[in-house]
């Protein structure tokens, strides 16, 4: 059995770890509120954008000549996957969940004999993917300096994607991120952004006939690049809320576990202290008896 001194040291070390995790939990909680707020505030923009695009794409007369960002390049040989993760660790299964989802998707693509290209946003995703998919990663971006997710950063990512699409470097683009549901649940999502899939939102389509100024396809070709940045931005907002939520619950668990550990160690410490005292007493008594 460990000596009393060792136990004492363990207890104090676990206690100080607990202090750290508790502090991290507090920080995550306050950041979470802000991130959650901005994620919720950002939703109307992306929803409206989506709606307008759907209306537009439905009323486009000439389906053949619709912009390539909408209809795709007609091929699906080269997939670009954008894996959005956090830049910091200690947030539970947050990054692992996205990576897991992404990896199973990668496997599917590779099994079908298609080419896979990966772009990572956030350094944690790169760290986890570089071992297996080193040759597939074509770009890594990290916004460590930016404090909060902002549109400017999202636009940067969007522009890179569009540039690559225009150079015909890929046919299909999918983003991976965590959707924030609540503090304990974040759902890893895969969303195809090029070509635009409109199967999931078709139901709330309005029957209205719109007047367009200028022509539909001109609006669309202006709108679609913006939509990509918007979708990325939405993913970033959801991600940052999820990250904080995930970190908060992870740190909450860690704090609780540390508490349990302290209790257990304290009991062990007291028992061994008592055992030592009893042993000494027995020695004294038996010594006295033998006289």
């Amino acid at each position, binding site marked *: 059995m460990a000596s009393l001194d060792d136990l004492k040291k363990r207890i104090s070390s676990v206690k100080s770890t607990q202090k750290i995790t508790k502090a991290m939990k507090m920080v995550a909680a306050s950041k979470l509120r802000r991130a959650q707020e901005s994620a919720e505030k*950002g939703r109307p923009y992306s929803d409206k954008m989506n709606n307008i695009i759907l*209306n537009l794409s439905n009323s486009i007369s000439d389906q053949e000549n619709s912009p390539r960002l909408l209809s795709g390049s007609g091929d699906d040989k080269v997939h670009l996957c954008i894996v959005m993760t956090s830049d910091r660790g200690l947030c539970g299964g947050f990054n692992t969940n996205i990576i897991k989802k992404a990896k199973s998707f990668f496997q599917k693509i590779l099994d079908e004999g298609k080419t896979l290209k990966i772009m990572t946003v956030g350094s944690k995703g790169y760290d986890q993917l570089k071992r297996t998919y080193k040759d597939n990663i074509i770009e890594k971006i990290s916004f460590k300096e930016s404090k909060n997710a902002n*549109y400017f950063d999202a636009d940067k990512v969007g522009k890179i994607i569009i540039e690559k699409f225009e150079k015909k470097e890929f046919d299909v683009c999918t983003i991976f991120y965590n959707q924030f549901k609540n503090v304990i649940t974040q759902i890893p999502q895969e969303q195809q952004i090029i070509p635009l899939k409109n199967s999931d939102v078709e139901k709330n389509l309005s029957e209205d*006939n719109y*007047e367009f*100024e*200028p022509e539909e396809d001109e609006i669309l070709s202006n709108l679609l690049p913006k939509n990509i940045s918007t979708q990325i931005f939405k993913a970033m907002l959801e991600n940052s809320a999820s990250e904080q939520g995930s970190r908060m619950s992870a740190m909450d668990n860690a704090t609780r576990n540390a508490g349990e550990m302290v209790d257990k160690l304290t009991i062990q410490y007291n028992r061994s202290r008592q055992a030592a005292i009893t042993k000494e007493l027995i020695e004294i008594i038996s010594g006295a008896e033998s006289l």
Partner: protein
Amino acid sequence: MSEGFKLEIVNPESSFLSKEGVSEVVVPAFEGDMGILKDHISIISFLKPGLVKIFEGSKEEIYYVDDGIVEFKNNCLSILTSNIFDIKKIDKNIVKDALNKAEQDNQKKDISDQNKYLNDQKIDVLKNLTLN
């Protein structure tokens, strides 16, 4: 006021402005300024850099936008924009920076005609702003 319609301006970060009972909105549509009144036909258009004027009774509010999309449907006008400022509260330095940047962009050789057109518009509007 029953005579008005609903106006919503959203930017990526948040819902910027939401108003009921607006009597008229003038937006800098791509092919020229466009005034929108109640019961306008459903329309979708996009914006060039310029001023959005909102009339509410006798009150008038003016905002500067960089770009955006307008959608009008069922007496509800939505403006989606990535950059919007209230011109009364706008910082002159920000205007100057934006103006400089637009002018620099215009010097670039590989600028497309459309971008140049948009940039020229931007410069005009921003210049006017700095004068006021």
